């Protein structure tokens, strides 16, 4: 995956968290994910389709996800709260939507969010696109954003997204 498609996600995660969660995000050096066993406790997943196909995953340790969801919602919510998954999914939705506006000249659609909650789960996709991990430090703790995307030629026919998630 061309590194030029990573920067929109870096900008998006900063913009979304600074505006909606009111916390600064310090982004580390992105790297290609080799270890398929990297895990998280809470993940928000959005699929892409069209001129780019794949997914973006926001992954959090449980304590960070709870704080982020609570600050976003403006009220204390824990993992068992009915709005917890909704809040994490909406944050993922905003990051994906905000990033894709930087894909100039490309027609890309985003899916509705999926949220996986489960201690040390792994998110895998059926597409073989390499996954780039963007490590993020916030005042709430560490989190990371994974982007796995294959970019078609702008004139290419729409490709279906194939993002499957397993806990």
């Amino acid at each position: 995956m061309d590194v030029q498609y990573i920067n929109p996600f870096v900008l998006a995660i900063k913009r979304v968290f600074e505006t909606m969660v009111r916390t600064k995000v310090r982004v580390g050096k992105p790297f290609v994910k080799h270890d398929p066993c990297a895990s998280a406790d809470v993940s928000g997943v959005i699929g892409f389709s069209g001129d780019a196909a794949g997914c973006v995953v926001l992954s959090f340790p449980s304590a960070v996800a709870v704080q982020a969801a609570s600050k976003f919602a403006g009220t204390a919510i824990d993992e068992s709260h009915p709005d917890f998954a909704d809040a994490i999914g909406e944050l993922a939705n905003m990051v994906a939507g905000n990033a894709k506006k930087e894909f100039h000249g490309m027609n890309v659609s985003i899916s509705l969010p999926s949220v996986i909650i489960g201690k040390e789960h792994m998110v895998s996709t059926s597409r073989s696109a390499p996954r780039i991990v963007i490590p993020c430090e916030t005042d709430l703790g560490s989190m990371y954003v994974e982007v796995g995307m294959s970019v078609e030629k702008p004139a290419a026919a729409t490709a279906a997204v194939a993002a499957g998630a397993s806990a």
Partner: protein
Amino acid sequence: MKILLVDDSRTIRNIQKNVLAEIGYSDVVEAGDGMEALSRIAAEKPDLMLVDWNMPNMDGITLVRKVRESDKTTPIIMCTTEAEKSRVVEAIKAGVNNYVVKPFTGETLSEKINQTLSKVTAQA
């Protein structure tokens, strides 16, 4: 002033409700998708609608087109992550009066709501 919030995220609807309360609007009804919104519109006759784009069952752009088949005047603000110019143009052609891109601050949302209502009042 009755306001309909259409968004599949309850968190976003709650944030919108808090912003509306701060600027003096507390008569709010909610829908989680376009289909539910059509029922709400028929029953509640809202004076303003805030509509998300990406939703299950019926998306926001389809909802706006359906509403505009019979109602050309009730103001609609699209409030969405869809930020490309082409999407904004598509929404305006469908009949939205204003457009708010997520993420938004409370100030931005309240400004757009006041701006939209002022324009509608001026045109009346």
